[in-house]
């Protein structure tokens, strides 16, 4: 019953603080090196517009990765995020189109329809996360299996909703909703602001709240956490719900970009998100991790693809190999600093 064990975890985190800060420098060094390389290869890389393009693109994976950081630190995993985003996008579009065509001679204002769509996305994300959390804790099924199952379910349901084709948002709604992705606030696109807020929220929750500490404690030793009277199941469920909400937020930003969802929407996002988390210095086995590292990891992954698109020194057939090599190299840098 005594909270001594949680205190212990905090103590060790202080002790390891210095070393951890050092090993967090790995991904940042990698990112800086990439940016210098990118500028040398093509001066257009270092323009403000290109930086905004890259950061806006990163925002979806980035937001999801922040949620994923919590799940992975607590010792879990979620493989379904890409499919979940696709299904949420599809459901949102489907509902908004249905409402736009009016039901029983009753039509809503377009703005209200979009608000309903956004709320629906967040609610769906939260519910999917809750389902994962309950299956993992109360159902006692490995998270890998639970989310591998839902990965298939979510995508299949979307494909069925879309008849294997595309769900496309009604044109009028699309024009009204577009600014959520395309508009800028003080010169910086909206998705980047949202990404910043989510990331800052993630940092505060992980490092400055009891919940954040419990997540780390569970990940480093679940048994001990249980003896320390941490409500392990509840904490785990909340991590999955948070991730679901993050996927919901990312989808709210994603839908106005193309105004459509297809069975290829969000394909392999789970791998990108997990890669961003791990490249950013979070241990895949759980217990320790950093939200800032995840943010850098996510940006790093998009910068690689951006540089490859901006140059043609390497055969296009080898693009994936370059990405793989950089990821391994950054992971190595990080390991060297440990």
């Amino acid at each position: 019953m005594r909270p001594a064990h949680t205190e212990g975890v905090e103590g060790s985190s202080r002790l390891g603080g210095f070393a951890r800060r050092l090993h967090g420098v790995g991904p940042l060094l990698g990112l800086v090196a990439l940016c210098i390389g990118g500028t040398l290869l093509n001066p257009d890389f270092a323009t403000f517009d290109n930086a905004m393009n890259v950061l806006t693109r990163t925002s979806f994976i980035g937001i999801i990765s922040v949620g994923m950081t919590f799940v992975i630190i607590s010792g879990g995993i979620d493989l379904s995020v890409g499919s979940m985003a696709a299904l949420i996008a599809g459901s949102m579009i489907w509902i908004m189109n249905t409402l736009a065509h009016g039901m029983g001679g009753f039509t809503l204002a377009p703005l209200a329809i979009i608000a309903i769509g956004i709320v629906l996305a967040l609610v769906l994300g939260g519910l999917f996360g809750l389902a994962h959390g309950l299956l993992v804790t109360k159902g006692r099924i490995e998270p890998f299996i639970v989310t591998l199952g839902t990965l298939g379910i979510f995508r299949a349901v979307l494909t069925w909703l879309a008849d294997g084709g595309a769900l496309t948002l009604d044109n009028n709604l699309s024009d009204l909703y577009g600014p959520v992705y395309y508009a800028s606030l003080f010169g910086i696109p909206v998705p980047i602001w949202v990404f910043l807020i989510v990331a800052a929220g993630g940092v505060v929750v992980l490092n400055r709240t009891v919940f954040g500490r419990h997540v780390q404690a569970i990940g480093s030793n679940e048994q001990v956490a249980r003896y320390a009277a941490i409500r392990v199941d509840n904490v785990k469920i909340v991590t999955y719900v948070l991730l679901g909400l993050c996927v919901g937020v990312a989808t709210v930003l994603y839908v106005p970009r193309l105004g459509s969802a297809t069975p290829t929407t969000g394909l392999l996002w789970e791998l990108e998100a997990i890669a961003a988390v791990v490249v950013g210095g979070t241990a895949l086995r759980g217990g320790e991790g950093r939200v800032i590292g995840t943010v850098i990891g996510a940006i790093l992954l998009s910068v690689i693809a951006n540089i490859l698109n901006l140059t043609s020194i390497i055969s296009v057939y080898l693009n994936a190999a370059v990405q793989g090599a950089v990821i391994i190299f950054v992971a190595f840098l990080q390991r060297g600093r440990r």
Partner: protein
Amino acid sequence: MKNILRALGALTLAASAVSAIAADKVTLGVAIPTATHGFTGGIVWWANEAKKELEKAHPDLKIIIKTAGGAPEQANQLQDLVTVNKINALVIFPFESASLTQPVAQVKKKGVYVTVVDRGLTDTSAQDAYVAGDNTAFGKLPAEYLAKTMDGKGDIVALRGIPTTLDNERWAAFESVIKQHPDMKVLDAKYANWNRDDAFKVMQDYLTRFKHIDAVWAADDDMMIGVLKAIDQAKRTDIKQVFGGAGSKEAVKRIMDGDKLVQADVSYSPKFIYDAIKLTAEARLKGENLPATTIIPSVLITKENAKQFYYPNSPF
């Protein structure tokens, strides 16, 4: 004892009667990939359309459609179709050429009439007939159209699909036409995986990298959607044309409506699965064979003929 004998006799009579009818009937198996993107979604839709129409028109015809998520699954389905459903004709859209050649050959050995669609088998003796779209025209027609409308000069950026022989064929055909026009230049061609999101990113980066672009060969209607959004966002006015490919209803609609950037497309409709099922079923009902190869031509879609390529009910 007598009763049993009589019953047995009746049974054998009945059985022979059934098999006599079965000989005239055509049970057609259709093996296709599951709907994972716009094009395969269209394949599944058109196959079901063919089943609906043809079964209604011919009471002697039964069509069984199986969709597979991968090559091994498709191979298993072929075995099931032969042993459980007792098909006597098969229309297959092979998941992969090489790995399905042997399974299809086994089916043919059992006396089933085999029509292969789109992706050719590595050993053509495993098939009776081959029905396919025209990938060379898919690359050649856009290049010729661009050369004509751009007066043989200008800068083009291109997108490619997923590294496959199909994509290579289209790209080679496109490039060979462009090479005949020394003033036309392909600035770069990157893979965007026939995916809207990837195309958006690749196009954004092209726009950052190249200050002047005359035309884009998006090489697919899904990728065209992403390209158009990226151009729209960058507010670039130098680009005069975006050419997709496959003739999706969205692209055809734009051409019909006189879109500023999308002025033409090339057909490569998933409808060829419908054609293949129809040709096979009707030929087999009469006991005839199909020609060894039937190429469903890819044609240029422009504002003049767009209407006949518009299928508003198809998902693609």
